[in-house]
């Protein structure tokens, strides 16, 4: 059915320990003053945790290519949409005024 050798009790336990360690890291970082990196750092740790859950607990590592393809494409599309939206908001500003028309014009 699946390549189940890569998901076993040992790998699940190691993933669980890693998840708890990463959660502790997130919690610890919340007390550090890391400035503008606060959110990017926290979300990067979250992304690592989610990858561990999807690859091992959800057994993506043991499934066929097409299932992995669905996940990669879906996450890629969502990331692109969110990045474009954030880029739009971050680069908004008051557009410069057009230069006044000279009397008489060209």
């Amino acid at each position: 059915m699946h390549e189940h050798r890569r998901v076993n009790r040992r790998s699940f336990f190691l993933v669980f320990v890693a998840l708890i360690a990463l959660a502790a890291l997130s919690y610890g970082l919340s007390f550090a003053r890391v400035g503008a990196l606060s959110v990017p750092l926290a979300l990067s740790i979250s992304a690592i945790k989610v990858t561990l859950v999807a690859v091992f607990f959800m057994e993506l590592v043991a499934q066929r290519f097409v299932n992995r393809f669905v996940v990669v494409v879906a996450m890629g599309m969502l990331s692109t949409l969110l990045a474009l939206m954030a880029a739009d908001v971050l680069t908004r500003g008051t557009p410069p005024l057009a230069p006044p028309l000279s009397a008489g014009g060209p």
Partner: protein
Amino acid sequence: MTNGTRVHAEHFESLEQQAHAAHLGMWLFLASEALLFSGLFALYTLARLEHPAGFHVGLQHAEKTIGSINTLILLTSSYSVASAVLALRAGKRSATLTLLAVTIALGLGFMGLKFFEYARHFAEGIRPGGQGSFFAEFPVPGVAPFWTLYYVMTGLHVLHVAAGLSVLGWMSWKVARRTILPPYDHPLALAAMLWHLVDIVWIFLWPLFYLTERV
């Protein structure tokens, strides 16, 4: 398909093909769920970029300890439900049922703490839509959107927790009745995937609503 002795549904060539199709369908469903939540995460991003001061005030009043305990609860429940799938595959029915019971208990614990947290916020005068005495005390732009997004996003998540618990309860019943037995074990794996989605969404909600108050 009624028990482990029947190998696969008529329209599949094998049980392997049936399980693969079911997993593919589940991944597509989870992708649509990701779309649903990503709209709300986009709204959060927009509101936070426009009102950083209001979100800072909101985060300072978050129940960080409760949120963090709930994170440990959900991570542990993901581990227990994943282990339940392994136990079923190994033919350990009793261990499967125990691990499912642990998962359900953890899920109920999460919901209990979440509703306790909501009650504390209501007592502080923090209600959705900028309603309550808290907002008069902290008249900062962005505070109301922060708390409204908090209630909407964590509320939608709690609905998923409730749905996940129902499905896990149903699966426990089927395992107990021996209608799910190896090699016909993928229904439990699919239910576990739904539960992992609950965990995944919370993994992102936790830093955004509890941890990132210091900038």
